[in-house]
């Protein structure tokens, strides 16, 4: 399995030969559009935070190919278990961008994914690092018990691989032959801690051996490679062939979050080098070279993105605050007698702030 998934510098030609068919080019163009849209969204979201209209925000700059490939490779009846940088995947699963903003704006309604979309059953972003992975194994168990012919895709970062949860999830996926794919977005940093200080394992993919499952690396800045890797792993899962660990190599081109200042711990030169390898320009170059994308298409699409992002922001900013009683009304299936008085008190107290 290792050969097809290169970590060597991008080579358009090898890729093209393997991608031949029109449909593949179409898929790449769709992916490219998503990546451009999400990068614009990301920029605007950071501005919203800087101007006090959004909370702490986790940028996805540099990870667009990974999250986009995930969204493209997933089938509607698969399950997605994200971490907190998967804006592109959520978007492709059917979560409107204004809900992504609501989430980062401190509003639980951002997690109410539309019922008529593949996202309807997906888990929301998970903040406690790696704790989503054992849950993903539980969902995969449910899918297996129900003969669902569905896969579960769970994502995490390189830092997350140091948590026992990561190992426990892979281990049970191996011994129970679960339809689980764990996708590591190895962006080389866990806040200020570099990959080398997380583990001495040769690669993070090697950790699959501890669970007796297949693992491999893939160039996370290379959309075609990502699609190939995830198509393979998800298809394998759907066909009951077991779990896979996919380590996608990329680089966090942004601060950890808007609350972080990466210049405290990271060399500008390293960041500069990483930019040479960023996923959008590389894909555009290939699409253009192959005649599937052009400057005109680019300009048109940029305008379209501008519009969509502005609409999402407007929707987000114009959403009236939720009633404070929401904090009690959804905790249990039915409001317990014991909480009645508190709910009343809550209704009577003043205030509440937005964004």
């Amino acid at each position: 399995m290792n050969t097809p998934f290169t970590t060597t510098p991008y080579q358009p030609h090898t890729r093209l030969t393997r991608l031949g068919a029109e449909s593949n080019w179409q898929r790449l163009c769709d992916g490219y559009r998503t990546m451009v849209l999400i990068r614009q969204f990301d920029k605007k979201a950071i501005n919203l935070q800087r101007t006090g209209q959004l909370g702490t925000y986790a940028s996805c700059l540099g990870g667009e190919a990974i999250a986009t490939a995930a969204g493209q490779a997933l089938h509607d009846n698969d399950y997605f278990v994200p971490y907190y940088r998967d804006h592109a995947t959520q978007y492709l699963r059917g979560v409107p961008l204004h809900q992504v903003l609501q989430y980062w704006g401190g509003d639980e309604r951002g997690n109410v994914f539309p019922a008529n979309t593949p996202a309807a059953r997906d888990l929301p972003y998970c903040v406690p690092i790696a704790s989503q992975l054992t849950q993903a194994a539980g969902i995969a168990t449910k899918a297996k018990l129900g003969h669902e012919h569905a896969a579960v895709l769970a994502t995490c970062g390189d830092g997350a691989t140091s948590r026992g949860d990561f190992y426990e999830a892979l281990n049970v996926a191996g011994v129970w032959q679960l339809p689980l794919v764990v996708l590591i977005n190895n962006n080389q940093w866990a806040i200020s801690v570099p990959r080398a200080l997380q583990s001495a394992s040769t690669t993070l993919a090697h950790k699959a051996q501890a669970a007796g499952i297949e693992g491999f690396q893939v160039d996370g800045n290379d959309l075609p490679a990502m699609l190939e890797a995830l198509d393979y792993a998800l298809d394998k899962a759907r066909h009951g062939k077991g779990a896979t660990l996919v380590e996608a190599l990329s680089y966090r081109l942004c601060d950890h979050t808007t609350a972080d200042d990466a210049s405290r711990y990271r060399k500008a030169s390293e960041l500069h080098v990483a930019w040479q390898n960023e996923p959008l320009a590389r894909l555009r170059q290939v699409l253009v070279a192959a005649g599937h994308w052009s400057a005109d298409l680019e300009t048109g699409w940029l305008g379209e993105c501008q519009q969509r992002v502005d609409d999402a922001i407007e929707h987000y900013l114009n959403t009236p605050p939720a009633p404070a009683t929401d904090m009690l009304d959804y905790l249990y299936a039915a409001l317990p007698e014991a909480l009645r008085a508190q709910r009343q008190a809550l209704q009577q107290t003043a205030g509440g702030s937005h964004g």
Partner: protein
Amino acid sequence: MAEQAQQHPDNALPLNLIEAINHALGQAMEEDDRVVLLGEDIATNGGVFRATEGLKERFGLRRVMDTPLAENLIAGLAVGMASQGLKPVAEIQFMGFIYAALEQLISHAARLRNRTRGRLSCPLVIRAPFGGGIHAPEHHSESTEALFAHIPGLRVVIASSPARAHGLLRAAIACPDPVLFLEPKRLYRLQRLPVSVDESPLPLDTCFTLRAGHDLTLISWGAMIHETLAAADALADQGVQAEVIDVACLNPLDRNTLLTSVSKTGRAVIIHEAPGHGGFGAEIAATLAGDGLMQLRAPVERVTGYDCPMPYFAMEQRYMPSVERIVAAAQRTLEY
């Protein structure tokens, strides 16, 4: 036993507490095929206390799953399953080993519904034997129910008789909210009592008044209910009529029953095995010191374990509240 139940649906079965648990699990699995069991040694071995004995044979390995040895994993698996409509009932072999599962219970199980504003929910049950008194090794006698009762969104239910174990466990499994279900292992095989297995499940948010009295109120849960009832007998011999309440559900808490009783008696003794400091008895005493204060005629007494870990078993009897300590506390409250 299940067979029996099917033959004579109306008969009450003579079951001890662990048999009642076993029966309720089998019954729930028959009634609802979304119910699955997972845990350590629960399949072939039927659980170290035999709570799941015979269920693998009846329902197969797909519904009775031996997991790898990892409590955090067990909880995470259960959360994932529950988030997609299964009704997992996970066994943590002893409460002393539940701590690795706390992050999943606190940060996810208790919050999934609220976090998604009802889009997803987490109808899981975590079963764990708790409490001391069986001469077990270290960590096998914990009662840290107070930690869980402080977690909003997580129901905490404790049985103290075969019938309540059966009725409360069925209710916990039927409940759409996550439930921690604690089983007083000291009572597992204490006595067989008639259990009407076909009655509807018990409510999950009411105390049970086990004995009526007007002189003072004894409040307890779990295995300590037995010392508490024994103390009530001893007090009766002295002409003191004690009301005995089994709290049973620590969260949400049925404050009304407690306040009504104490407004009648004016005196309360709270008994639990866990250390007193920050124990759940404090919440009940605080309730009485709030809405109940004006009815209190004597200081609220708490008879609890000492503020140290349950000692190794050679000393555990010295640690746990005794009938004598309960009676003495009751008598102190009667001096006012």
